[in-house]
């Protein structure tokens, strides 16, 4: 009976799962070391991240889970919603301990909630695919700023690499300060030390932009305004599909100077 603390990474979490089996622990709660609030009466135990142990848990999970749910543990972990560790821990224990697949047991609160959280994270992933807007700079790089609610940028790499195979691109997560860069051969993670774009709305400084960039932004905005049917105005529907927090990155929704 203890509070288990881990370093906040997914590997750390999987190590916790491993140790729970190995040391026969029954955790009261799991939480990040940084999020732990001191409590006089509770025994706490820090678990040190071990890549090998984490790997073993991950591989056996992959073997157990249905192909639709292979990414579920990682996706829901990325949501960082409060109490997610304990829900996920209970879910993983059931997956391992049960003789048959329990992944569709939606009568169980943990399974249902994890499914719902997974849906949220996947929706955020989809919205990156929808609302990324590249700006072409003079050196031929297509740059796009994003600010996703969850850290889901890595899940979109395959899509963009497949789609924009013949152009240099960089998608940068402003909030978490890292980006994915594609150099026509492979993608890699980059951190920009010197930022040539606005920290708020990700606009690249005008003198660095390709000459035609502004033309196309204007054309796109003109198109966007004219494809609308004013008689059918429906702001609620628009916001439902395209919440305001994405607008600042969209040329069609932000004023052009």
């Amino acid at each position, binding site marked *: 009976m203890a509070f288990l603390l881990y370093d906040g990474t997914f590997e750390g979490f999987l190590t916790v799962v491993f140790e729970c089996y190995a040391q026969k622990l029954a955790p009261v709660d799991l939480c990040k070391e940084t999020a732990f609030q001191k409590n006089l009466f509770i025994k706490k135990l820090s678990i040190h991240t071990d890549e090998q142990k984490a790997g073993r848990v991950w591989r056996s999970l992959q073997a157990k889970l249905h192909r639709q749910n292979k990414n579920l543990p990682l996706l829901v972990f990325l949501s960082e919603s409060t109490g997610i560790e304990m829900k996920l821990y209970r879910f993983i224990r059931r997956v391992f301990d049960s003789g048959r697949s*329990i992944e*569709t*047991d*939606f*009568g*169980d*609160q943990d399974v*249902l909630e994890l499914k719902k959280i997974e849906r949220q994270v996947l929706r955020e992933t*989809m919205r990156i*695919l*929808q*609302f*990324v*807007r*590249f*700006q*072409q700079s003079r050196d031929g790089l*297509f740059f*796009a700023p994003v600010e996703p609610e969850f850290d889901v940028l890595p899940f979109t790499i395959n*899509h963009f690499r*497949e*789609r*924009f*195979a*013949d*152009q240099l691109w960089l998608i940068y997560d402003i909030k978490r300060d890292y980006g994915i860069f594609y150099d026509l051969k492979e993608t890699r993670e980059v951190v920009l030390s010197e930022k040539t774009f606005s920290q708020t709305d990700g606009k690249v400084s005008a003198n660095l932009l390709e000459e*035609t960039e502004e033309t*196309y932004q*204007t*054309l*796109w905005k*003109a*198109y*966007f305004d*004219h*494809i*609308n*049917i*004013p*008689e*059918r*105005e*429906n*702001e*609620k*529907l*628009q916001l*439902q*599909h*395209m919440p305001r927090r994405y607008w600042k990155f*969209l040329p*069609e929704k932000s004023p052009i100077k």
Partner: protein
Amino acid sequence: MEQTLQEKLKILADAAKYDVSCSSSGNNRQNTNGGLGNALSCGVCHSFTDDGRCVSLLKILMTNHCIYDCAYCINRRSNDRPRATFTVQEVVDLTINFYRRNYIEGLFLSSGVIKNPDFTMERLMLVTQNLRLKERFNGYIHLKAIPGASPELIRQAGLYADRLSVNIEIPTEPELKRLAPEKSFGTVLQPMNQIKEGIQLYKEERRKFRKTPAFTPAGQSTQLIVGATPDSDRQILQLASGFYHEQQLKRIYYSGYLPVNEYDKRLPALQSPPLVRENRLYQSDWLMRFYHFRADEILTPEQPFLDLDIDPKLAYALRNLHLFPVDINRADYEMILRVPGIGVQSAKMIVDARRFRKLNSYHLKKIGVVLKRAQYFITCNELPVYRGNWDPGQLKNHLIAECHTKRKKPGDTQLSLFPLIPALSAPAKQLHFKS
């Protein structure tokens, strides 16, 4: 006077916006070695206009000049409107540059008919050919097949495009003759049949030779205008059902008639577009495509129009109260799908989850069933049967009243007078508090 590209784009986007088709789904086109773009079978919407419709494809007309004079169309010959024509290269450039910036999923190209159908179709075909061969573009392309164009041109277009569509617009032949004397059902159905046969033929071929190219892999769609003619919803749905089954159409779009040509006395004078009716038709369409309903189950000969107050699924349940209540823990998937308040997703989850334990109303609520509606039509472990003393009319009124109270915003009631004068009410409270 030479028009700028931007002026042309404005005019031709304006002219294209009444075509409601927008989807970019149905095909997983791969990016060929180092080209540009691909297509996702789920489709992606890249933006949403102020009317709430999605922008997935760059939807434009090649030209809004037209030799026809159809009463319902904004681009008819006799309308005095600014006209413009794109060159093939302009459309190609716009598509590629928008696509590279991730603004769009691909191109939706339609056109007014200039000179003759063949000439028009050829230009559309040229755009797709240039995009696919010259630019190595593998994004989504939706092309209009121009009625009356030669089969060979349509066949070629089908080899480059992901989806082809022919708009039928008016649901019945006599009405079409009245509003568009130059058109007939025959000219519309001819390309439709050709595309359908093409798809089947190429599918057969593909079974034998793997290298056979795909022919309109995302299928074909069409559009019907609702409210421009006195045709009943039943006629529209019967037609739609026929299209889905016999022509194997992927989608039918319903477009609430907007009074674009008010001076034409052949058309009804409407205050606003029939949006609710359009919505009910889409709901019925969904019932046919995802809920396994037949057209004649949604509307009977005695009731040719959809009820605007309640959705068609609820209307069906009220007409067929003898089929309910449905036992959530025993009934088959098909029957659970028919319960108002249970959607496809919930129905699937119910069928999956009940293998583990008996479900009760708490579980259903958590799963996402709208119990407010569903409770009158289901039994589960402990839920009492609400049906006994309801007759259909009563239950209908009851449900309408309930959904009205839910929709009502705080500002809708008479009491809202008070928040209008906060200066009077708020400080008084504070004073009271202080004393």
